[in-house]
Each structure stands twice: as structure tokens, then as C-alpha cells.
């Protein structure tokens, strides 16, 4: 079939649609006044849910710190955990601001690139949060424990903490999209709900290639 025939086919289809499609004006008017949940807003909603949960968690951690000021080990550990979570909430708030700046009437590659970039940067939140893991091994220390626990206890305990530090640093360094070709990295990110992020990253690369291809 020739190009002209294909275009004619589409043109006929268009004419047929013009005749048969009926707009429901009442529904459009209702859409203008009623609350309507849209696809684009649902990503925003997840961000808001993340921010609210994060703030509640931080408030709880701060409450614990304020009420346990006499234990320096607890204050430092929980304080550090709170700081990591403040960073995460801050990033989510930044995403909301960036989402508001995405103009749906922007060019397709422009708008889709921004949306995908926001989604992929969420992976950094996960990576940063991994770094808080060692502090979950130290928050229960006390002055009494430090003064009286034996050498064996400290060897075992500090080995566990060291293991957590190494593991979290390794995960922080490795769980990046640059390493997505590694099966376990992909599996790890996917198993922690990162499937959407991987798809967004792949789409981002696709857009980049699309923009440069044929130039």
C-alpha cells in the first residue's frame, strides 16, 4: 500500500469519526466542577503520603531523643536516623515542587524527560536511607553497657556494626542505575518497589537516544 493510500485511509477514518463521535457536554461540565482523580495527580499523591509518613516518623524520633537526653549513645544514633529521614522528606518535598513545574503542555520529550527524571531520582532517597542501618545497631547502647560489658561482647558487637557499615556503604555505592546490568542490583531495586524507577530510567535513556538519533 502506498503512502497516499495510507493517508487516505486515515483521512476516511477521521471523517467517519467526525460523524459518529458524540460529545457528552453534560459530563464535560461535570468534570469541570467535580473532584476528579487523574493519573498525573496520583504520583503526586504518593509523594504527599510519603512526606506525611516521613514527618510523623521524624516527630516520633525527635520525641524519643528529647525524652532520652541522658543517654548520649541513644541520642546520637536516633538523631542520625532522624537526619537521614529529614533528608528523605526534604527530597520528597523537592520532588513535589519539581512536579508542579512540569508543564503538561510542554513538548513531549521535554515533559516526559522531566517526569522520568523526577521518578528516577527517588532511587537516591533509597540509597541514602540504607546508610542509616548501622545506627539501628547502636541506639540501645548505654553508659553502663560501655563501662561493664566484656571484651567478647564488644568484639561480637562491633563486628556486627562494622559489617552493617561496610554493607550499607557498599549498597549505597552499588545500587545505582549504572549497575543495573548486574542481575542482583536489578533484583534488589525491583524487590524494594523500584520497578517503576527502573522503567522510568529506561524511558529516560530512550528519550535521550530519541533526541540524539537522526540528528
Amino acid at each position, binding site marked *: 500500500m502506498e503512502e497516499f493510500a*495510507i493517508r487516505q485511509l486515515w483521512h476516511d477514518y477521521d471523517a467517519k469519526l467526525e460523524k459518529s*463521535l458524540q460529545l*457528552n457536554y453534560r459530563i464535560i461540565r461535570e468534570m469541570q466542577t467535580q473532584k476528579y482523580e487523574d493519573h498525573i495527580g496520583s504520583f503526586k499523591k504518593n509523594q504527599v503520603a510519603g512526606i506525611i509518613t516521613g514527618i510523623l516518623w521524624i516527630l516520633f524520633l525527635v520525641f524519643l531523643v528529647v525524652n532520652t537526653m541522658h543517654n548520649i549513645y541513644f541520642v546520637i544514633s536516633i538523631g542520625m536516623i532522624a537526619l537521614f529521614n529529614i533528608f528523605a522528606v526534604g527530597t520528597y518535598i523537592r520532588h513535589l515542587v519539581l512536579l508542579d513545574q512540569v508543564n*503538561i*503542555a510542554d513538548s513531549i520529550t521535554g515533559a*516526559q524527560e522531566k517526569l522520568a527524571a523526577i521518578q528516577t531520582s527517588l532511587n537516591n532517597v533509597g540509597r541514602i536511607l540504607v546508610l542509616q542501618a548501622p545506627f539501628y545497631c547502636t541506639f540501645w547502647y548505654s553508659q553502663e553497657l560501655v563501662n561493664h560489658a566484656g571484651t567478647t561482647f564488644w568484639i561480637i558487637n562491633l563486628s556486627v556494626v562494622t559489617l552493617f557499615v561496610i554493607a550499607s556503604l557498599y549498597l549505597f555505592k552499588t545500587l545505582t542505575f549504572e549497575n543495573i546490568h548486574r542481575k542482583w542490583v536489578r533484583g534488589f531495586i525491583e524487590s524494594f518497589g523500584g520497578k517503576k524507577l527502573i522503567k522510568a530510567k529506561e524511558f529516560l535513556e530512550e528519550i535521550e537516544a530519541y533526541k540524539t*538519533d537522526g540528528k
Partner: protein
Amino acid sequence: MSSNQQELFLSVIEQNKGIIYKIANSFNKDEDDKKDLVQEIIFQLWRSFPAYDQRSKLSTWMYRVALNVAITSYRKEKKKTEVFIPLSENVLSFPDSNESNEASLNLLQQFINELKELDRALMILYLEEKSGKEMAEILGLSEANIRTKISRIKEQLKKRFSTTNQ
């Protein structure tokens, strides 16, 4: 939105209802998803209509919004969204599926549906006979890039139709 603007918006939708349907049809196979997408596109058009500044053509603005919404919703995981409009009524009544019974049209639609999202958007614009300049504006690409991609898609299309006709 003033009542004048609302009337203008409705007439814009009326004049371009075919485009909205064709985009929804190219990004969704499932009838319910298609209806949801039509609602979504019209809703987003309505939301961004007051910000339309006439620097670009109305059709450019419309294709940008409609295709952006279609691609974004296509990339979402399949999940029913709660719409507040009763499902028994549609914002756009669709033609019978028999309408597209013609083999060639079905084949063309199948070809479009198999393309990647960005190529799919480009193919729709090409079939809508948009100029290279407007396609470039809508997609955010250079005209040279558009020309290369169009000729590539046309080759694929030609191949598809020739193998089927054999």
C-alpha cells in the same frame, strides 16, 4: 474559567474530538481504559486551557497535552483509577467496533499500537498531516531528526503492508 472561555473550550473539544479518540485508541486496547484516557485527556486539556498563551498553534498545544497524558498514563502500571464520573455515561460515545472492520485500517492501527510510545506519537502526527515544523514543536525535536524518523517509520509501514498483502 469564564463562561466565554468555557464555551470556547467546549468548541475546541468538539472540533478536535476525533484527535482525542484516535490518540486514546492508539494508546489503549481495552475499551474501559480507552474511556478513562479520553476523560483524562479532556480533564487535563481543561486544566491547562487557561494557561494556553497562543504563542503556539492551538493544535500544537492540544497534541502536546493529549499525547503527554496518553504516554504518562500508558507508562503507569495498570491500575484502575477512581473516577468520579459514573461509568455508565461516557464523555465521548465511541463508534461501534465494526466501524474499524476494514482490514487495512485494523492493520494500520495494529502497526501504530506496536510502536514505542514516542514513535507512536510521531506516527499519529504524521498521519494527521502535521508539518515537520509542528511535529518538531510538539515532540521537542529538530526538524532534521523528525525527517529521519518519519522516513524510518514509513519504511517499516511499507514493509508491514507489503508482507501482509502478499
